[in-house]
């Protein structure tokens, strides 16, 4: 592997996050290299969502450091965070599309907020392009409530991609979708990754998704990075904690 030569996009060191006296993350370490997909495995409630919400500054970590593009997220002011967030995409597990707005408005929102000087024509063009990427141009003026689960996930994906982020955090992108739609989403993730040369962290316990998307798999257990390796390496493992995911 050519690990030494690649740029490190996300570097997490000794991350600790507790709610009350419940330690969710307890000395978590992870490095994500440019252009790679890291999948985080872990049981429900193990703190996977908490981890990526710390990375984008939605949650404040208690100690440790998170560097994205060499900048420390945990020590940023609100304005600096806003700046950094325009380079980080986040796909929410529940899609989090604004249900009082049309699909068009949903996609326009991040554009006009992060790129304040952008022209109307440019917004229009980017929105159309983003929807075309996920084959949903015809939903432009629909409301989120009119779309199916898989379509909503694709729109959410389009919204995440619209700012061309260099890093994308996916929170369970295929959970709750049927196998066919799941494959579609995985392919979209891979397609957009190739197109925009993004690096990503993908949370998943859908082993098909892991197999198809992961360059590196990390198991989050008891707040720490329990083991990491490629899909094939982990599949061979005899460790009980790992084997249960492959059954």
């Amino acid at each position: 592997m050519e690990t030494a030569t690649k740029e490190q996009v996300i570097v997490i060191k000794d991350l600790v996050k507790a709610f009350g006296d419940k330690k969710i993350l307890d000395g978590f370490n992870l490095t994500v290299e440019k252009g790679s997909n890291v999948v985080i495995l872990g049981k429900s409630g193990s703190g996977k969502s908490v981890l990526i919400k710390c990375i984008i500054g939605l949650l404040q970590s208690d100690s440790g450091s998170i560097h994205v593009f060499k900048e420390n997220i945990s020590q940023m002011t609100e304005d600096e965070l806003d700046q950094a967030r325009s380079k980080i995409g986040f796909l929410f597990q529940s899609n989090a599309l604004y249900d009082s707005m049309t699909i068009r408005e949903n996609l326009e929102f991040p554009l006009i907020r992060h790129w304040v000087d952008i022209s109307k024509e440019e917004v229009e063009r980017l929105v159309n392009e983003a929807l075309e990427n996920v084959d949903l141009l015809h939903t432009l003026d629909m409301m989120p409530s009119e779309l199916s689960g898989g379509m909503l996930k694709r729109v959410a994906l389009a919204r995440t991609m619209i700012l061309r982020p260099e890093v994308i955090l996916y929170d369970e992108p295929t959970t709750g979708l049927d196998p066919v739609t799941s494959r579609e989403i995985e392919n979209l993730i891979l397609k957009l990754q190739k197109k925009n040369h993004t690096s990503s962290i993908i949370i998943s316990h859908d082993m098909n998704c892991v197999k198809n998307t992961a360059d590196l798999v990390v198991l989050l257990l008891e707040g720490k990075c329990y083991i990491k390796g490629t899909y094939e390496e982990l599949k061979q493992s005899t460790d009980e904690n790992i084997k249960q995911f492959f059954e």
Partner: protein
Amino acid sequence: MSLVIRFKNFLDETGNIARFTGRFFSVGIKPRYEHKEFFNQCYIIGYRSLPLVGLTAFIMGLVLTMQLRPSLVDYGVESQLPVMVGLAIVREIGPVITALIFAGKIGSSIGAELGSMKVTEQIDAMTVSGIKPFKYLVATRVLATTLMLPLLTILGDAISLFGAYLGVNIRSVTSFDLFFLQVFKSLDFSDVLPAITKTLFFGFAVGIVGCYKGFNSTKGTQGVGISANSAVVLSSVLIFIIDLLAVQITELLGLN
């Protein structure tokens, strides 16, 4: 739950709402302002409440007049009916009933809307998209409720007085001019001003409580329901508490 724990929770909640209110004054009223969303909320909160406020105000004026008449007849002062009804509506019943209807309609819808936005991560999505949810969602709604309730109250009072005019005319005949001449002759500036001023505070309470409950909604559809429900209950109670304080203050200021 033991009484001690309940009392502690009550104090916690009070403290949290106070802090939320403090945040409104420190964060919410600084630029950048979300004009578009503010006007949108004024439309939703003000204009869309009109039919309900108008209907209840009309019925209230009518019923109040019909209920008061027999007592006044007993004392032989039936001619004072417009004065009595006018004072009751403008000083107390108009503002409070409008505020309660408003709390029921707007408080619950803000609580449910923000609550479901919270549990479906839409509020987090806003933060990620470079929008300050407190400004975009809370400040706009609280300002809109604070400004719209006084306007709704003034309109409600007017409709209520019209209902009262019809009520008077059920049993006797009064001309429109005479009725309103009597009403306005008995009304002072000191009757109207405190009554409208307190609705600013009622509106503020409905907005803050609705947003607070929504923002702190717990997971699941049940959590959203609880937010909406407790927003109405709490803001209704607050309306009465503020009303009580308002009476004391106007008395102290000698505005009675």
